[in-house]
């Protein structure tokens, strides 16, 4: 699974190791496909193809900035991954997904169900 922080198609960051996204993916029982760097890094098509995630995780605001799931799955590099083949995009509200507040358990459960 790959977390994309998107603000339009020219501003795409991938959540690497030790990011809130990484921890939330682990909590939900998934594996972060971007595991060779810390922090957030810009999406590189080649790295995305190499990582080949099964699911793309985005904020719902990110989903809107890319004009829906089709927009996400046609991004350079993402279009060639398993996620695009299986049309698997999960979008959740930003504070709910990565706020790590009282709703953290609920969010993790929801994410776990969505990727099952």
């Amino acid at each position: 699974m790959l977390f994309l922080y998107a603000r339009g198609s020219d501003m795409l960051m991938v959540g690497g190791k030790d990011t809130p996204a990484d921890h939330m993916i682990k909590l939900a029982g998934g594996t972060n496909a971007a595991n060779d760097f810390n922090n957030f890094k810009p999406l590189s098509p080649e790295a995305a193809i190499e990582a080949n995630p099964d699911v793309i995780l985005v904020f719902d605001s990110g989903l809107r900035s890319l004009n829906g799931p089709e927009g996400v799955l046609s991004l350079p590099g993402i279009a060639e991954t398993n996620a695009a083949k299986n049309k698997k995009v999960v979008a959740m509200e930003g504070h709910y997904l990565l706020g790590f507040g009282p709703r953290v358990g609920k969010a993790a459960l929801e994410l776990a169900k969505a990727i099952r």
Partner: protein
Amino acid sequence: MELLALHRISKDKRYLYLGASLIVVTIAVITAAMIGYMDINAIQVVSIVSQKIGLTNTTNFSTNQAIVLWNYRLPRILMALIIGGGLACAGAVLQGLLRNPLVEPGLIGVSSGAALFAVLFFVLGDQLPNSEALAIYILPIVSFLGAFLVTFLVYQLSKVNGASNIAFLLLAGIAINALCTSLIGLTLYFADDDAIRNFTFWTLGNLSGASWIKVFISLILVLIPSILMVRYSKILDALNIGEEVAKQLGANVDMAKRMLIVLCALVVGCSVAMAGIIGFVGLLVPHLVRILIGNHHSHVLIGSMITGGLALLVADTIGRIIVAPAELPIGIITALVSTPFFLWLLLKSKKQFAF
């Protein structure tokens, strides 16, 4: 340029340079295809390409390697070659046409004219019933219109008693450049977030959006006009002696001028539409070529095409790997790498002219 005209170079040396530059381009293409986040070695590069064009059917590479090379690296390499060559060629033509060594598409406002129209298209484009697919084809045309208008305007403004005056040309160009930049700023002030982010792409230049469709479009709208320009090299040579002399030699100067301006606008406009504003290639490469292979326009134009493509490819490859997995905008690299090189060349040729 008058000084450089004294610099004669033998025919043998010229062919040596051309041959050598073609070999260097080939090496650069293969190297650029190998370097990147994903490792692909030279043998794999060759076998992926030969499989894609249906020559062989080897399996010494993975599917992902083939996707990365064919869908991302190769179109990008070709775009760099075509656009770099086109910009350098347009720069050489403008320098010859306006008889001014300082002229460059970016300097006299041609690029910013193209960018202004592109930005207007981005901001106002939302109101038009268009799709992303359509934008790929319309954007080059819109940018061409911008580039053409600015070139025409600057040229007309610079006319004193019917002939283009160099001082007026530069001043008018710089003024129009500033005007376009401020109009872009004004447009963006009223634009939304997405349009502004798209715009950062335009100001620094970027080849990361390369695709085979764009390669195809730039083949038609950049490479072919560049080759057509070479046809006018004799007239450009004659123009170097002076407009009146050129006319007395029987050249249809006015017709040639108009054609060349349209061709330059086409090349620059389409390049800006495809890759944003890439500076310095159009200014430096023709000078480099003149120092290396002499001053005849047919040589300068062809040499600029090859060298410009090579320069942009090298700059793009550096930009691709230097901060991997992120990318540095190509405009930063071209300025950073080429200006010291140009200054070095300048100092070197200065020594030759000293007694």
